[in-house]
């Protein structure tokens, strides 16, 4: 299968790879997928005092499209408020990366990951 240039770019030079301290109050972690399905995504966001996402990190076990989807997502969420980040749709990711139909589920996983990270952060901050 041919990958789009954008997928290849994110795959070759993934942005914001890393791990944050899950115990920190201002860090939300979303881990979605399962090894048995061939994909696991861990997305983490860190917010400042105003509730704006100041940093994001990811690690992904999965195909190139899954890696690219999560890498792109970390770029997109930075500078956004939580409610804005939650609004990101998998279709936007799929469109930006020109994912073929069989790879749509990789972008769905990315959407699930940001939703899970936001939910985790909200729970921690008690609202």
């Amino acid at each position, binding site marked *: *299968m041919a*990958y789009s240039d954008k997928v290849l770019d994110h*795959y070759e030079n*993934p942005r914001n*790879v890393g*791990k944050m301290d899950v115990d920190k109050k201002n860090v939300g972690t979303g*881990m*979605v*997928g*399962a*090894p*048995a*399905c*061939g*994909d*696991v*995504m*861990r997305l983490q966001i860190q917010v400042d005092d105003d509730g704006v996402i100041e940093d994001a990190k990811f*690690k*992904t*076990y*999965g*195909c*190139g499209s*899954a*890696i690219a989807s999560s890498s792109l997502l970390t770029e997109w969420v930075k500078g956004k408020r939580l409610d804005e980040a939650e609004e990101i749709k998998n279709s936007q990711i799929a469109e930006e990366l020109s994912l073929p139909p*069989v790879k749509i*589920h990789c972008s*769905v*996983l990315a959407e*699930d990951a940001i939703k*899970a990270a936001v939910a985790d952060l909200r729970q921690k901050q008690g609202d």
Partner: protein
Amino acid sequence: MNKPIYFDYLATTPTDPRVVEKMTTCLSMEGNFGNPASRSHVFGWKAEEAVENARRQVANLINADSREIVWTSGATESDNLAIKGAAYFYKGKGRHILTSSIEHKAVLDSCRQLEREGYEVTYLEPTSEGLITCESVANSLRDDTILVSIMHANNEIGTVNDIAGIGEITRAAGVIFHVDAAQSAAKVPIDMDKMKVDLLSLSAHKMYGPKGIGALYVRRKPRVRLEAQMHGGGHERGMRSGTLATHQIVGMGEAAAIGMEEMESERDRVMALRERLWLGVKDLEAVQINGDLHQRLPGALNISFSFVEGESLIMSLKDLAISSGSACTSASLEPSYVLRALGLSDELAHSSLRFSIGRFTTKEDVDLAVEQLVHSVEKLRDLSPLWDMYKDGIDLDSVQWAAH
């Protein structure tokens, strides 16, 4: 060095230039273009002579009589003809068939079809080393078993079954024994005089011959009968009608002759390259070879790299043409049924690659593969949350995953 480098010799092999040369002599006006079935002129006689010469070459490769070779379009057709042909012919004796869960789809789907028609099929499970044991065959034979079909070498992991041993059991029980030898022919010795195999499938394109041609060995003593699946002009003693494809057949014959001549020297060379590849990657943490280490094709190596996903690994190895045990690319998310049958977890099956080495692989090819593999695995592990967890000592099986 041409890139990408071909490491997929179990999928198919390039046609040997010596084979191509022989084939082209059958494709020109001045050459041997006649119909081998034409009895009334020299064009037919010459074509028939070429076909019969090739038949002897293929028979020699497996130490058989040339009258025991039936031309087909490939191992898929040979498997279909052997299994359905024998099942239909001997249905009066019983309707039970014994095969294994790691056979090629050509065998499995032929058996599924027979199940739909009222036959009963038992699918033997391999050992965790990927082998079908003689004991498991012996223990599963029934009074109404008419056919046993077990592959010689497996196409995903390269393990080689003891077909001589299984043949002793089936012969003693009076049951027909079919062997799919598409992957083993011209790589490991096959001797029909010694092995009690009744039907044996061969394919030219796995042994440096052209695609679209194969053969089925059908034993004469004791005689094995089949019900034809392709009806028509009664070619191949009625077992497979259709005008013979002289150029294809000549190609398969030449491939068999070369394969026989070079089997031993090639085996040592190819095995050394396989060993070189494994030595180059085995020090990466959490890697394993799938399938028995000793009963194996010289050029086959199926490796699991834990915590990296097979498809992304292939994507990063763009200079190497390899095949993945993972089927995440296809519409189904099913990992390889062969690796699953060995007892590999889905996760490990998703992290497996099949390397196959052959006649045109060089040391330089292998060295480049090792270099890129090590680099890619390390890079992808840096990206892998599972690797982090493994390094933190977390047991991945204890985690509650949100499967989708």
